[in-house]
């Protein structure tokens, strides 16, 4: 009797919780197509405007990175500082109209930072995969920073 009540009452609630937990992650089946599809599934209007899609996807990724529990608060602060340093580097490069060698150095820093994030996301492989998929978009996004 007790187990039947438990099954009837708790299982459906737990199932909803699990669906919510799983559903909060987005799929990135194939590199760029997956990113656009993930955005399109959230907002059908953005599918009509492909130019706006990467921006929305970036915000979603950043939000997911903020929310993930695979990285602790202190580590997130360190990563944020690293990102801010990288943005500062890009701004300086743009202001000084830097050389291709400087751009290569920025790209190396970007790759290093991305590698750190991916290594830290060992326990959240879905997010790691999506960030890996959005690698080019992230680089483009960084290069769009105004001096």
């Amino acid at each position, binding site marked *: 009797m007790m187990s039947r*009540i*438990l099954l009837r*009452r*708790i299982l459906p*609630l*737990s199932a*909803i*919780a*699990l669906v*919510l*937990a799983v559903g*909060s992650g987005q799929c990135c089946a194939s590199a760029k197509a997956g990113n656009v599809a993930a955005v399109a599934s959230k907002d059908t209007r953005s599918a009509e405007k492909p130019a706006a899609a990467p921006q929305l996807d970036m915000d979603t990724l950043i939000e997911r990175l903020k929310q993930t*529990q*695979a*990285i*602790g*608060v*202190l*580590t997130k*602060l*360190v*990563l*944020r*500082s690293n990102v801010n340093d990288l943005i500062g580097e890009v701004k300086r490069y743009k202001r000084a109209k830097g050389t291709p060698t400087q751009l290569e150095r920025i790209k190396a820093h970007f790759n290093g930072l991305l590698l*750190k994030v991916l290594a*830290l996301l060992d*326990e*959240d492989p879905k997010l790691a995969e999506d960030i890996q998929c959005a690698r080019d978009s992230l680089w483009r996004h960084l290069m769009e920073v105004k001096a």
Partner: protein
Amino acid sequence: MKKMLLILGLCLVGLVPLTPAWAVTSAQDIATTIRLMGYECGGNTVSQVSESTDAKGTRTIVATCPNGKRYRIVVSPEGRVSVQPAR
């Protein structure tokens, strides 16, 4: 009885998505920060953690790594993190 089961169910719903088994602990977070800043720690977690915050909002954490080295982690009010070996 029904009320109790409902409360238990709601607790389960609340706990499942909030605390995944793989969520990092504070000690693991501190160890990762130390390693990320380029210092050796000798493991994934720290012990003997002491924490204080001054009047300006600067947070200072002192922790011991598995290799016996002690580090001071300073978090500025702006959110900048720095790590120094402690004596």
